[in-house]
C-alpha cells in the first residue's frame, strides 16, 4: 500500500494543485451554516447494509437535554467552489452527512463500497493523515475515481470523529476534469 502511494504519478499532484487553486479562486464568500437534522436517516441512505455507520455514540452527548450527539464541523466545497459548513455527528459517514444536508455528493451504491461516485478530496494533508489508511477495497474504487488526487477518499469511508473537526472536503469538478484533462475511461 505504501509503495503504491509513493509511486503515484506526478500528474496527480499537478491536477490536485490546479484543482485546489481553481477552487480557491472561485470560492464564494457566502457560507451557509446549517444545523444537522436530528431526525432519522433519510430512506435513501437507510439500507446501507454492512457499511452503514450508526450515528449513535455512547456518552458523547454534550447538551443537557441529551438529545444532541457530539458533532464536528465539516466544510464542503461544491463543484462551483461554493462552501457549505455543516455539523456532523461523530460516527456518521460524510456520504450520509452530505445527503442529510442537500450537498450534491453522488452515492450510486449507497455506501456499499461498489462505486467511486462519492469521491471527495481532503483539502488539508494534515487532516488526510488523521484518517485511517484506505483499505484495498477502497483503493480499488479510488482507481476509478475522476480527478484522483493524493488526498482523495470515498465519502462513505470517512467517518466523523473528534480529530476531524474543521475538515474541508472538495467535490471533484467533474465536468472540468472530463473535458479538460483528456481522461481515458478504463475498460469495463
Amino acid at each position, binding site marked *: 500500500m505504501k509503495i*503504491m502511494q509513493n*509511486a*503515484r*504519478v506526478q*500528474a*496527480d499532484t499537478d491536477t490536485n494543485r490546479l484543482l485546489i487553486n481553481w477552487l480557491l479562486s472561485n470560492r464564494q464568500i457566502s457560507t451557509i451554516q446549517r444545523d444537522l437534522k436530528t431526525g432519522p436517516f433519510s430512506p*435513501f441512505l437507510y439500507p446501507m447494509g454492512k457499511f452503514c455507520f450508526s450515528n449513535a455514540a455512547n456518552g458523547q452527548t454534550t447538551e443537557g437535554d441529551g438529545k444532541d450527539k457530539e458533532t464536528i464541523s465539516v466544510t464542503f466545497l461544491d463543484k462551483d467552489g461554493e462552501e457549505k459548513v455543516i455539523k456532523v455527528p461523530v460516527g456518521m459517514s460524510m456520504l450520509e452527512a452530505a445527503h442529510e444536508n442537500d450537498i450534491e455528493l*453522488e452515492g*450510486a*451504491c*449507497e455506501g*456499499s*463500497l*461498489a*462505486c*467511486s*461516485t462519492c469521491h471527495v478530496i481532503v483539502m488539508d494533508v494534515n487532516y488526510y493523515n488523521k484518517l485511517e489508511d484506505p483499505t*484495498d*477495497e477502497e*483503493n*480499488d*474504487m479510488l*482507481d*476509478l475515481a*475522476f480527478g*484522483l488526487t493524493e488526498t482523495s477518499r470515498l465519502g462513505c469511508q470517512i467517518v466523523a470523529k473528534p480529530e476531524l473537526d474543521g475538515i474541508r472536503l472538495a467535490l471533484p469538478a*467533474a*465536468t472540468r*476534469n*472530463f*473535458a479538460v484533462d483528456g481522461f481515458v*475511461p*478504463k*475498460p*469495463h
Partner: protein
Amino acid sequence: MKGGLLFRGWKTLTSRGFFSLNDKSLRVCVIGSGPAGFYTAEKMLKAHERAEVDILDRLPTPFGLVRSGVAPDHPETKIVVNQFSRVASNERCSFFGNVSLGSDVSLSELRDMYDVVVVAYGAESDRSLGVPGENLKEIYSAREFVWWYNGHPDCRYMAPDLKCTDTAVVLGQGNVALDVARILLRPMSELQTTDIAEHALVSLQESTIRKVYLVGRRGPAQAACTAKELREILGMKNLQVHIREADLVISPADEEELKASRIQRRVYDLLCKSATSHQGHDFAGQRELHFIFFRKPDKFLPSEDQSRVGGVRLEKTCLKANGLSGKQVAIGTGQFEDLNCGLVLKSIGYKSVPVDGLPFDKYRGVVPNVRGRVLSSDQPENVNIEQGLYVVGWLKRGPTGIVATNLYCAEETVASILEDIDNGLIASPSGSPKPGRQGLLQALEDKNVRFVPFGGWEKIDSKEKLEGQLRNKPREKLTTWDELLKAALG
C-alpha cells in the same frame, strides 16, 4: 390497452397544465434507459425546471446493463437502480418500454416531436476477431453469454453446451472476461442465491467445465481489467490460479506504462502476488484459472467430429512500441501453439449499431460528436451540428468505463444542451411548439404499439421479487418477451 393509452394521454396533458398552455416546456426524449440515459434524464430534470423527459427503451425493462450486464454476484453495483427509480418517479419523467427505435418510431419522427433528442442506446453488438473458424458452434461473444446468464430475453434460448468439455477459453482479459470466467468457475452454492437466470443456473449446475483460460494479446502490465474484479477472482475459494512467472518479467517500456497508470500498476501487483502465493500448491479436483499472456488467436479449430469448436490456435506475440500513442502493441512472432477447448467466449469489446438518420463513425463505432452534440459529418472540413440531437454513454465515447463514467459523460452532454438552449439554438424554426409526449403517444397508438410504462416495469419487478423469495434469491428474472409483456401489461 387502448383505453389505457387514452387515459394516460389525458393524464399527461392535464398534469402538464400551466407549462403546456404557455408552451414553454422543453420536450426531451432520451433513447435508452441504461445508466447513460438515466443519468442524462436526472441531470436534465434537475437543471431545467420545465424539462419533460421521456425515456424510451426497446425492452419492457429499464436500466440497460445494470440489469443485463452487471454480474449476478455483484448486487452492490445494482443498488444504483434505486436512484434511477427515483428519477423515473419524477412527475416530469415518463418511461416508455417496449418501444423500438427504427421499427416502432424513427429517429426523424422523434426529432420532429421533441425539442431535444438524446441517443443513449449503447452497444448491443460485438467486435469480431476476423479469424478463420469464428462461426464454429460453441463460440459465443461474452456479451451473449452475459445476456444469457442475466436473463436478457434475446438470449433466453442460446443454450451454450457446458457438458461436453472441461475447458473454456475466454479471449480477452478485461472485466467482462473476468465476469464470465468467474461465473463459469464459481461454486453453485454461491450462485444460487443471486439473481442469475434460472435456465443458466440449471445449465451451470450440470457444467463439466473445470478449467478456464484467459487469453490476452499483451502482458500483465497491460491487462485491461480493474483491481477490484481481479482481486475477487484471485481470491475465489478452491480455485487454482496459474500465471507463468516468465510472463511477469517486465521491460523498461512496461515500467514506464505502469508508472503512468495507478490502475495498471495495482493490477500488475495483484498478478505478481498471486503468482508467488500459488506456487507449490496443487490440490486435485480444484478448478483452474489460467492467465495466458502474449498470445493472440490465429484460427479456431473444429472438434474431431467437426460439429463444434475443438480448440484455438494461438500465435505468440511480443510487444512493440507504437510511436504515436506511446502504448505498446502486440506483434505476432510466427510461433504457434494449440489450446484444446470445447467452449470459446470472445470478450474483445462491444460494438454499437447505427440506426437510420443517425450519423455514425463506422471506424470508431461511435456517433461523431463534440461534447455530446451530434455532428453530421466526421470529415473535419465539413462539419455541421445536428440541431437538437445529442449523444451520451457508449454510443458517444465507445464501449468502455464503469457505471459512474456515465455520470460525468451525462453531465457533459447536459451542459451542452443547456448551453444551446441559452444560445437559442433549440427553438423550433416554425415557432410552433413540438408535440412531445402527445406526439409519441399518438404515433404509438397509430402503429398499435403497446408500450410498457414505468408502472408496468414495477409489476414485473414485484413479480420477480416475489418469485425470487420462494427460491431464496433476490429476484427470479422473467426471461422471455412473452412473460415480461404479460406481467407488465396483462
